Every structure is written in C-alpha cells, then in structure tokens.
C-alpha cells in the first residue's frame, strides 16, 4: 500500500508492456488510419484524439526502457520525460476520449491492437492517481457494496417480488445445481426491469432451470473500466466462486457490453485458469433456444427498425449473426445501419465514458456519429443488446430532439414469445 505517484504509474505501465505491445510500437508506420476509425477524432477533428496518440506515454516508456536507441536518447537527455504533466494531459485522452470500442484496432493495417494498449495504459494512470473521480467512486462502490451503482441484494429481491406478483413466475436465488446462472447489470436492475421479466418468461418457456446468485448478481466490472487488474480480479472472482459453488453449467452475461468482455474474455486471464463453467451472452442463448425449437415466436414488429451493434458484443465478442437471426424472426421491417456488424460505430458511452460525468460534453459530441448513421435510415425504433449503449443512445437521442424509442432485443423477443403451458 503506497500513495499513487508518477513512479508507480510508470512502473505499472512498464509491467504491462509485453511482446505484442513491443511489436505493435515497432511496427506502427504512422499512417494515421486509426484516426479516421475513431469517433472522437471524426466528430471533433482534433488530432489529439488519434488513437495511437492516446498511448503515447506508453510508447515513450517502451522506447526509454526497452529499446537501445531509447536508452541512448534518455542517457543523452534527448527524450521527453514522463511526469505529472504527462499523466494529467493524457488522463482525459485515455479515459474521456476513448470508449475502448476497438474500432482502431480493427482498422490498423498492421494489426496493432491500439484499444488493447489503451486498456493497458489505464493500469498505469489508475496507479498514478490519474483516473476520473467518478470511475474511482464507481470502483469503490463495486468493491465495498458490490455494485458500481450501489445496488444491494434487497433491491434485486424487491424486483423479483414485483415480478413474481405481476406475472406469477418464480425466480429462485442460490438454487444449487441449476443449469443457468443469470447475471444482471446495475443498470438493468435500476432502469430496465423488463429484462429480468423477459428472462423469466423465456426460461420457463424453454423449460430450463436457472437461478440468481445472492453473492454475484452483478455482472459489471468497474475494475476493467478503470483499469486496475487487481480489483477486476476480485470482482470477477465473485462470479466464478458463486457459479462454481452452485455447480451451474452456464453463466449468462446480460445485455451489457463490458460485463460480457469482463466475464468472458478477461476473467480467465485475471484468475489465471479456465472456468469450470461456460459463459454465454444472452443473445447466444436466445439463438440456441430458437434453433433447438425450445422457444417460438409469433407476430412481427411492423415498425421500421435497425440494430445498433454494441462494440463489446459484436466487434470484440463476435456476436453478429445471432441478433440478425433473432430480429428477422420478430421484425418485418429490419434495416441495417451503415457499417453494421463488426465495424459498427460505438454509441459513444462505452468503456467507462458514460459513468464519467466530466466527459459528458465530449460524449455528446461523439454521439453525432450515431446521429448521422440514424439520420440516413429514418427508423421508428432502435434495437440494441447492451444496457449501457441503450442509456447512452436514449440520452443522445433526447439531447438531439430525436424521437426514437430504444429497445433491448431480449425484451423484444420475449414480447413475441409463444407461451404455452408445459407439463412440469
């Protein structure tokens, strides 16, 4: 335990530099294509938002610590030092001006994972004490209360009670040996209770057993957003411990982008071993259920609608076909956005940006990219599969006076569910 400092920040960044990072920095040809891929650059046209520039402190540390020329330059006093001013200047680029959407990594002609390096850089910024206060607060709540929005178990229980009273469905907590363990994001508990009801109805129709863990109902991971692996590990371990002690086969990640990345991709690396259970996104589960004939839908949405691909789910998660198959079952007038799928543009609020109050103005500026995409389509409804995208989109649309409702795909599927009595 020591106070945050520049030295600590440098050491943490140094520890993050591995062979891939070294090869990325050596192979960058400064072509600038990543700038055009980044919505913070395209909407502000400020070159400081060029993705590769966001990792400039990390590049300097790599050069000074790990290259012969860099060491020589440092010895001759030719290299720019990394100091308080550097951390201060770059803090807003690394946290406020990046949603970790990963579009730059895909656009790089040399295959350099720039957004991965920004994620790694955050480790150093957090250690140096240069993380946004709101993210620190959220992380504190996640560690101490168990949820970044401060949601406690009684709130979840209250929601379950409402749900049981309204629909007559039964939701179990900590049911040993259930097949599925369902995770929720705070936002779904607080803002979108429809999600839980949709799950309950779909699971009953599919005839599957499922449960919610009292110690790990929260799917989000503030440790990943702020960039502190030590804390991210503690948070993800809650889910792993609960899932393994309940003996579930599959953990279902909710409609939340970074939660999915955290539990599915980063989790096993954080705890250093493979899970004893599978992790799937709710869209994968719905697609499996419909393919296996476990659930059927009826009726079609007639409104002209489009689907916003959440970055963590489509670009980083590879879940591109599933939502389309599902949408085509329940919507007759589904149109694709330009750049849909793996190259879709971020909602502008991912990677901790939406939780960071001071980034609001920048976020709304970056939202113009989504606005342009939507203006081209003139849709009545916008469908997505991430609670954070949903909230960001709703705010952006409202700010721009656009009257387009935003709907979660899981709920839309549940709305069209054929519900029949099954012998239990």
């Amino acid at each position: 335990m020591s106070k945050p400092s520049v030295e600590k920040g440098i050491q943490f960044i140094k520890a993050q530099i591995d062979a891939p990072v070294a090869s990325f920095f050596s192979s960058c040809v400064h072509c600038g294509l990543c700038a055009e891929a980044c919505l913070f650059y395209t909407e502000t046209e400020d070159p400081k938002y060029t993705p590769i520039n966001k990792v400039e402190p990390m590049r300097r540390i790599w050069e000074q610590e790990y290259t012969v020329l860099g060491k020589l330059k440092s010895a001759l006093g030719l290299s720019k030092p990394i100091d308080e001013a550097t951390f201060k200047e770059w803090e807003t680029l690394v946290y406020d001006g990046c949603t970790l959407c990963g579009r730059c990594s895909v656009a790089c002609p040399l295959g350099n994972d720039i957004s991965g390096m920004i994620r790694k850089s955050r480790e150093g910024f957090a250690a140096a004490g240069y993380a946004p206060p709101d993210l620190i607060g959220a992380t504190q709540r996640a560690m101490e209360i168990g949820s970044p929005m401060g949601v406690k178990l009684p709130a979840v229980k209250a929601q379950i009670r409402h749900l049981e009273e309204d629909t007559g469905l039964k939701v179990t907590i900590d049911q040993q040996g259930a097949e599925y363990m369902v995770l929720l994001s705070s936002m779904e508990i607080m803002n979108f209770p429809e999600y839980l009801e949709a799950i309950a109805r779909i699971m009953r129709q599919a005839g599957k057993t499922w449960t919610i863990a009292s110690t790990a109902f929260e799917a989000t991971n503030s440790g990943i957003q702020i960039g502190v692996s030590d804390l991210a590990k503690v948070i993800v371990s809650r889910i792993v411990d609960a899932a393994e002690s309940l003996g579930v086969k599959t953990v279902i990640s909710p409609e939340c982008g970074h939660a999915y990345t955290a539990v599915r991709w980063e989790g096993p690396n954080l705890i250093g071993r493979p899970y004893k259970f599978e992790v799937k996104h709710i869209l994968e589960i719905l697609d499996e259920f419909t393919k296996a004939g476990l659930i059927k839908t009826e009726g079609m949405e007639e409104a002209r609608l489009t689907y916003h691909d959440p970055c963590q789910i489509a670009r980083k998660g590879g879940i591109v076909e599933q939502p389309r198959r599902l949408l085509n079952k329940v919507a007759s007038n589904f149109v694709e956005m330009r750049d849909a799928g793996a190259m879709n543009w971020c909602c502008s609020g991912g990677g901790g940006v939406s939780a960071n109050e001071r980034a609001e103005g920048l976020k709304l500026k970056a939202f113009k990219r989504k606005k342009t995409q939507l203006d081209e389509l003139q849709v009545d409804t916008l469908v997505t599969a991430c609670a954070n995208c949903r909230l960001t989109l709703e705010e952006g649309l409202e700010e721009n006076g656009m009257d387009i409702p935003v709907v979660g795909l899981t709920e839309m599927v549940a709305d069209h569910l054929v519900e029949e009595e099954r012998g239990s």
Partner: protein
Amino acid sequence: MSKDLKSMEQEHANRNSKTFAEHLEQNGISRRGFLKFCSSMTAALALPAGSADVMAKALAAARRPTVIWLSFQECTGCTESITRSYSPTIENLIFDFISLDYHHTLQVAAGQQAEEAKEHAMKESYGKYLLIVDGSIPTKDGGIYSTIAGRTNLDLLEEAAAGAAAVVAVGTCAAYGGLPMAKPDPTGAVPVSALVKDKPIMNIPGCPPIGLVMTGAIAHFLTFGRLPDMDELGRPKAFYGDSIHDRCYRRTFYDQGLFAKAFDDEGARKGWCLYELGCKGPTTHNACATLKWNDGVSFPIESGHPCLGCSEPNFWDAGSFYEALSVPQGRTGETILKAGAIGVGVGAAAAALNRSNKSAAVEGRETITVEDLKRES
C-alpha cells in the same frame, strides 16, 4: 457501321482527354474518398506522410496513360487477381482509368482489329507507354512454342519494349520464369529481365500477385513518373521488403517452438506455426501477411496452409511444398550465417536484459486496493 466506329473513336478520344479527378467524379467517388485512397496508398508504399498531398495533386491532374499488356506463357491467373473486384473501389477505377489499349483477355476487339489497336497505341505514345507483361517467354527453337497472330512472343516483346517508358513484369512467370521455366523446362522459358536490358523493369512476382501491389505501382508511376524503389530482385521494396514470416500472425508460436505436425493434429487446430508442414514464409518476401487477399479477408497461412513461396525465384523447383525448410535458404552465404549467428546472440542478450527489466517491473509492482486510487491534491 462506319458511323458506329466513328462514335466509338470519338468516345475514346473524350475519355483520353479526361483527368483522373474528372473520371472519379463521374463514377461517384467523392473528393474525400479520393484523398483517403491517396493517404492509404502513400502508407502502403511507405512514402513520407506529406506525399499524400503530392500524390493527390498528381493523380487528380493525370491524363490517361497508355498501357499495353502482353500475355505470354501464362495461365491468366494474374489478370484474374488484378481485375478481381470486391466493390467499385478507387483501385478498380485506376484500372478503368488507364488506357489499356491492348490486353487480349480483356479487350473487346479480336484478331486483326486488336493487333491494329496495339500498333496504333504504340506509335502514338512511343517512348511514353507502360508495358505490362505476364507470362514467361519461350526461347528454344527460335521461340516457336508461343505465338500470337503468327508472331513469336520473343519478337513481340522486343518490338513492344523498344517504345516503352518502363516495363512491369507481373507474376512469377514474367518476373522469374515461373512454372514454364520449372524443370524440365521444355520451351526454354526465360523471364522478361533476361531479354529486356535497356529499360527500367519492375517485377511484381507472386502466383498470382496481390492486386493492390499492382495498383500501388501504377499510382506511384502516375505520381512521380517513375517506378518505386526496388530490391535486388527488382521488386518494389514497399511490398516485398519483409518476409511473410516476419509479419506472420503465427510468428509468436514459432518463437515459442509450438508447431503443427500434421494438418489434422491438435497444433493445427490451435493455429500453431506451420513451419514443420513446409511453410516457406521465412524465405518468402511478399505482402500477403499484411495486405492479405480478397479485400483483406485472409491469406494462406491464416486459412491453415503453409506458404508455398510463390513470389520467390525457382519456387517450383525448391523441393516439396510440404517439406520443412532445413536451413535458412535464399540469398545467404556462410558469412551472413555467421553474422546472423552473432546478431542472434546480441539480440538474445538484449532480449534477456529486457526480460529481466520487465520481470523486475512485474514483480516490483504492488497490489492496488481501492484506497490507493485517490491522489491527494
């Protein structure tokens, strides 16, 4: 009939007087799209960043250059690769833009008319046209093994090369002899460079080569009026400077000694290095691993097959495609091997130093708790 011919000629003349910028505008490509193309092309050619501007100015004002394309002992695979269109891109439009006055696969005219078109183009742009050749040239028995319109390839090349500003040898056959020159070489096939001695020649080898490399070379020619920088085998350095191995995404497995031993084993499924299955990536210079094929979809190694080394001279006779390279091949002598060994030693020492530097950083780093996040201001 004669009226038709006249209007066709008129149209041809109109097209010839159009600049590239006008041509793009007509095809619905925005100024912005064009500038983006120039920047990415500048990057692909490894030109300094400021050259994008230069290229944009030169290309925008460029008039249609005359290009004559001669196909000799070849399979048309190169033409296929180069004309492959994914979507109407500026790369394709460059091909539409150049005045391809003679290409016997692509042109509409045939027979007498076709040959006349070529002679006309050669006479009109004497000393200025770009000559593109695919296929090798048979020389045995006076070159009788491949003739077009009754004339041998040998004869046709000599005549066309005389008035060319530069010659581009497309494909491994034209660049290094390729398949026709492979043992037992019944036709006495030779590459373009064996016959044309007094003109700048650029080789774009590959069986087939990547379309973008071709576009890059043409864009460079239009911008600067000369061919790009080339290596000792006459290939543009920007695209052939690195080996497939150095740019391979499976390189990390090679470095860790993790190899697929068969096409259906665990290693193959895990995407390990294909070196032991005969991959020629370490001795092959090309841009497949970075530019990839089919609009950046994939390249052979990514699809699970070792590199055949198709852009290197004599690749057909370099032993089995499926036999592992035993020693570093290619343009290396013993001295280079020794120098290499020293280099490896130095590199390993530097790497070891960095490793200890890095592990010190990892070990020295303390665990962070929530209390450690707030800075006192």
